[in-house]
């Protein structure tokens, strides 16, 4: 299951874990990514709060957590090669979290709703 936030982050849910990244739409909007500022393993993310930043050749913007949870893994490949986000935003998640409250997923958009959201 994949859910999206209004600020264009996704969470790909696998069991009790969620892989959080930015959507393909967000990636395109930002352009060539030059740096991804990630939290550390063990950090607690809070839904709606920023947990890092993504910087492209054009702009920097905050990463906002779609769900709360503890960071159990970060995508270290992005440290050396942030452009992976442009290559495939869905495959190149940024952090893996242990989802604290699955009910938070209900307030996010599913793929069809998100597709509609970015169309307007």
């Amino acid at each position, binding site marked *: 299951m994949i859910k999206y936030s*209004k600020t264009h982050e996704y969470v790909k849910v696998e069991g009790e874990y969620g892989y959080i990244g930015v959507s393909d739409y967000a990636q395109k909007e930002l*352009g060539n990514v030059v740096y991804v500022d990630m939290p550390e393993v063990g950090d607690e993310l809070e839904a709606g709060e920023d947990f890092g930043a993504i910087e492209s050749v054009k*702009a920097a913007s905050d990463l906002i957590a779609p769900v709360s949870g503890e960071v159990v893994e970060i995508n270290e490949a992005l440290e050396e090669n942030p452009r992976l986000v442009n290559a495939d935003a869905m495959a190149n998640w940024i952090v893996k979290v242990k989802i604290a409250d699955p009910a938070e997923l209900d307030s996010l958009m599913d793929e069809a709703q998100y597709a509609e959201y970015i169309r307007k």
Partner: protein
Amino acid sequence: MINAVRMPVAMPDGKFRPSAAMQGERLPFYLAAEEWLARKCRGDYFMMWSVKPTVIFGRNQDPTAELDIDYCRSHGIEFYRRKSGGGCVYADGNNLMFSYITDCDDVVTTFSAFTGRVAAMLSCLGIADASANGRNDILIAGRKVSGYAFYFLRLPDGRQRAIVHGTMLYDADPETMTRILTPSAAKLNAKGVKSVRSRITTVREHLHISLEDFRRKAIEAITDSKFDLSPSDIQTIRQMEAEYYRDEWTYGRRQRSGHQRLEGVGTIGADISLKDNKITAIELSGDFFTLAPALRPLTDPLIGVEHTAEAISKALEGVDTSRYIANLTTDRFISLIARQAATT
């Protein structure tokens, strides 16, 4: 419609008058004001401001690789991280700061609309060959006079706002700039975004105009309406300002001191992790000579300690560092760990 943001300024008679030429605050106040206008207000705003000598580096830059921190400290030059991307700049009273806050559908369009407007302002004042380039700079005859960075905000309600801010060199002292923006020691393996050097020029080189006149004409050319900050707006901005003063924000959570060569010790560097401005881990590396089986007695007392020079010295009271690392005095060790910690 672009609103010129004005602040109440105390006059000699004790009365307050709104002024669009904002000055006298420290840099974080203006960054917080931009963010407040972006998050809490609707519409378009323009703010012109200036600060005493201050270095501003990009969201994802390593300050130890971009500026000479020791030099700044000893010369009273402040330095801060901003939330927009890009490289490091030096600001003082002659380098005016321009901030444009607006709704944003598309980063490129927003950027070029604003830089185009600023370039047109310079042309109107009589600078013939001012133009915006593709790198978000404004050039006069091929030299940079003004450069912009972008902070793109996606608000919880789905609105998108932009903070486009940058420098406008009225006058400059290139030697001072270069001195400050040259790190004391070249850093190996420096992480983060690197600055790009540009050949610069100034408004004054091309135009006989006083700083005051230039400020006034720029505001007139760029804005067509006014917005006055109220005392309660200013109070909210002051609360938002606080996060820019935290070491953890300024230096980053993982601080790498870089390797220093210390006489009699060799090279030594420290990787320090912070959380809530407290030290959570320290790793020492270098070619120094160790005199003990483990260095933990040196680093353990610092875990959980606030990253300030005072707290670090206090935590190391009674620790004789030269028993662990040959010829390393406790004072030198403190200055290595606290090198980046605020001294205030």
